[in-house]
């Protein structure tokens, strides 16, 4: 587009009938005038001439005085593209109004407070959104303690201006950006820009990630087209209530708002949206189907809702079309971590929503390092509070790279109240005994836990899965000592530093990894053992805790081979009367490598002791 056309279009969008020119005069006498001056001089230095630099200083000073905002670096970068219109005959006062209105509309409040608190709150929001859309990237940056404050500042406060060298490219971006007419659209653009380069970010050396991120930019028009298209899709794919929660004006003070943001570890879906989805046939809304909520409820965003309350809370009523889960279904942390695998076909296609009892009570984890650090120090899942259970489940989904995971704002309490108010039915709900209808009942002694019949159908599929896991819990004790591991053996190994355990899965057929069975590899100085998962080890020392599925000698180790395209799968070859091959699927490539290293270390030690002929 040529410049006169662009000027015409932009003045139409931004000036809205403001046509009067006015004299732009002011003294250059702000307390930080020298900073404005130096910054004016170093704004787009290859493009802006001396006279224009003076004008930049004048306009910035005028802007600060008129709006009563202290000058901040970045304002100059936003002004420069507008000032260039002056070359094409636009009056200085119109240049100023364009700039002023652009900042007011698309950088609302960004510069208004001296401490950049608004910016800080966008950083928190951005972090949550990144984890929502691309958990792998989000957790990777989280692990490396790289927050948006380290790379996203110029994107946010200058709407990418300071990162785009070619001003024509910047005009194109801003023009398309303005068409979107959305003051928070920069969040989606920044997300799209990162997601576009996600693979190269994930492959970067951790010490170079920041550098890599700060180098992301829009090189040309194709990149703009691609990124903006992606941004729009990301925005469209956000469940409605999450979307409006971003834009909802907050009546909290800025500090309270920030504290609230930090207290979230993920985005929160509103109970209203959940109910619209869970009761698709009834008019869950009181508006008779005409409000924005109802129209959005027919959107294609599908929700998979997990009720994560305790079993004795679920028996007072459950919401239809939700899947009941609670800590009792998981016999250890591992089974919880692997749980998302069951929903692989839905990955990326549904929005996963975790429903707790009430609002989650998380202290802010700011400056505490990564989110995962918070939860993986848990030793025992059953000791966990419900909040931690939900957080663990959230991380389990995120680690398995499931995007779109959120929690329900206000939890079941909030949903229950809305459901009752609207005359909808809960499954197994007895208003007289329900602790949600009668909060006082909560203080009475509880009946023994009992899974009520109505829930069984919902549970059946889940239970089947855990039955399978549970079947390993009671290994047969009949076989002789060579085929079982008894408790005292295990105790001995545990106190021996040279023995290592690896939890993994064993598979027979490389084409069918789905059928891989849970197992534990035990590597001692001389033996390589494969056991079934250990069962309860609290009883007597002769009690069997696991069955040995395979037992070979370290000195018979020949070689190991990784499966092509799958770093976590390793096949070990051992000498014997016949060649013995054992194939395993590890949780991570690091774990796989660690196992191999351990085996080789013992093998080498034996070789050094000349026990193995070279």
């Amino acid at each position, binding site marked *: 587009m040529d410049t006169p056309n662009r000027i015409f279009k932009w003045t139409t969008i931004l000036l809205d009938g403001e046509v009067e020119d006015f004299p732009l005069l002011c003294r250059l006498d702000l307390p930080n005038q020298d900073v404005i001056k130096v910054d004016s001089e170093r704004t787009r230095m290859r493009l802006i001439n001396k006279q224009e630099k003076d004008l930049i200083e004048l306009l910035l000073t005028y802007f600060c005085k008129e709006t009563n905002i202290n000058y901040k670096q970045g304002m100059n970068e936003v002004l420069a593209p507008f000032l260039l219109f002056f070359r094409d005959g636009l009056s200085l006062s119109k240049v100023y109004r364009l700039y002023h209105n652009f900042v007011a509309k698309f950088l609302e409040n960004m510069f208004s407070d001296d401490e950049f608190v608004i910016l800080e709150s966008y950083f928190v929001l951005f972090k949550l959104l990144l984890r929502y859309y691309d958990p792998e990237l989000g957790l990777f940056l989280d692990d490396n303690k790289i927050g948006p404050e380290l790379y996203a500042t110029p994107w946010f406060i200058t709407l990418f201006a300071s990162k785009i060298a070619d001003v024509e490219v910047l005009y194109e971006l801003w023009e398309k950006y303005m068409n979107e007419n959305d003051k928070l659209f920069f969040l989606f653009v920044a997300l799209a820009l990162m997601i576009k380069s996600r693979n190269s970010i994930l492959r970067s050396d951790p010490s170079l990630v920041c550098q890599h991120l*700060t180098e992301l930019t829009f090189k040309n028009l194709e990149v703009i087209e691609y990124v903006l298209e992606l941004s729009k899709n990301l925005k469209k794919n956000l469940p409605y209530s999450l979307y409006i929660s971003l834009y909802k004006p907050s009546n909290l003070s800025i500090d309270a708002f920030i504290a609230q943001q930090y207290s979230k570890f993920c985005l929160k879906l509103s109970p209203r949206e959940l109910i619209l989805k869970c009761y698709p046939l009834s008019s869950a809304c009181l508006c008779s189907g005409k409000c924005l909520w109802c129209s959005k409820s027919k959107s294609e965003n599908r929700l998979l809702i997990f009720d994560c309350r305790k079993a004795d809370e679920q028996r007072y009523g459950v919401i239809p079309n939700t899947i009941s889960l609670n800590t009792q279904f998981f016999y250890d942390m591992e089974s919880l971590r692997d749980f998302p695998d069951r929903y692989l076909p839905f990955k990326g296609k549904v929005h996963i929503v975790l429903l707790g009892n009430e609002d989650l009570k998380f202290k802010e984890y700011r400056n505490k390092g990564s989110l995962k650090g918070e939860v993986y120090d848990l030793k025992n899942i059953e000791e966990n509070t419900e909040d931690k259970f939900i957080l663990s489940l959230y991380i389990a989904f995120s680690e398995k790279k499931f995007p779109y995971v959120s929690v329900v704002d206000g939890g079941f309490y909030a949903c229950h109240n809305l459901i009752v108010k609207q005359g909808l039915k809960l499954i197994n709900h007895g208003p007289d005994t329900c602790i949600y209808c009668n909060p006082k009942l909560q203080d009475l002694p509880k009946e023994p836990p009992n899974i009520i019949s109505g829930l069984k159908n919902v549970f059946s599929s889940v239970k089947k899965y855990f039955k399978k896991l549970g079947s390993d819990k009671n290994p047969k004790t009949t076989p002789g000592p060579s085929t079982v591991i008894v408790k005292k053996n295990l105790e001995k190994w545990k106190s021996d530093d040279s023995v290592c355990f690896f939890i993994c899965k064993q598979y027979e057929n490389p084409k069918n990894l789905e059928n891989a069975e849970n197992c534990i590899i035990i590597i001692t100085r001389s033996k390589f053992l494969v056991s079934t998962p250990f069962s309860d080890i609290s009883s007597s020392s002769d009690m069997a805790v696991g069955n040995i599925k395979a037992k070979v000698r370290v000195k018979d180790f020949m070689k190991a081979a990784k499966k092509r395209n799958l770093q976590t799968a390793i096949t070990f070859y051992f000498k014997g009367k016949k060649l013995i091959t054992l194939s395993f699927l590890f949780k991570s490539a690091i774990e796989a490598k660690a196992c191999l290293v351990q085996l080789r270390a013992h093998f080498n030690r034996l070789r050094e002791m000349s026990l193995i002929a070279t």
Partner: protein
Amino acid sequence: MEVDREFKIVTLGEGRVGKTSLAMRYVRGQFNEKEQSTTNANFLEKNIRINETSIKLNIWDTAGQERFRALAPNYYREAKGALLVYDITDKESFWKVVSWVEELKMQADKDISFVIAGNKCDLELDRQIPKEQAIAYAKQIGAAHYSTSAKSGMGVNECFEEIAKLILDKESRSGSPIRSSKARSRVIVKNQEEVVKKKKSGGCC
């Protein structure tokens, strides 16, 4: 090149004193009179050798003028060294260094090493901060002081390398290992028990 140690260093100081120019001169040997103002941070790295130790310096060149109330610590978290820069022709920028030192003492890593750089020494005629005053202050806080010019290159290598030396000295005095041990740890959660196995050998064939 194998790297024995890796240090994070931050550059701090008021806007336009020449933090980016110093870092660019040091890492890339370039000086750009038309350096854009830094709205975020630049992340640079340089491999150097001090005595027998090869060191990778990760230099976090921060934005000067604005500090985020809660976010500034994210820049200097885990930094082992800080290059505090002022402009010898600007009195205010020196006082900013003083306030940075106070903040770092309160918030940053306890063992952080400081070096103060009086930049723009090519503009000696416009000097506003007497060199003696700056050196006396540096001495008082246990830091080294360098007169630098990103434009001419004067003192640039020296001030960055001094930081690396100070960090190494501090480590050897406090007895921290020069080479991080390659101890591996492994955690397995099974049933209700957690077994932690630590392996000391880093051997691998």
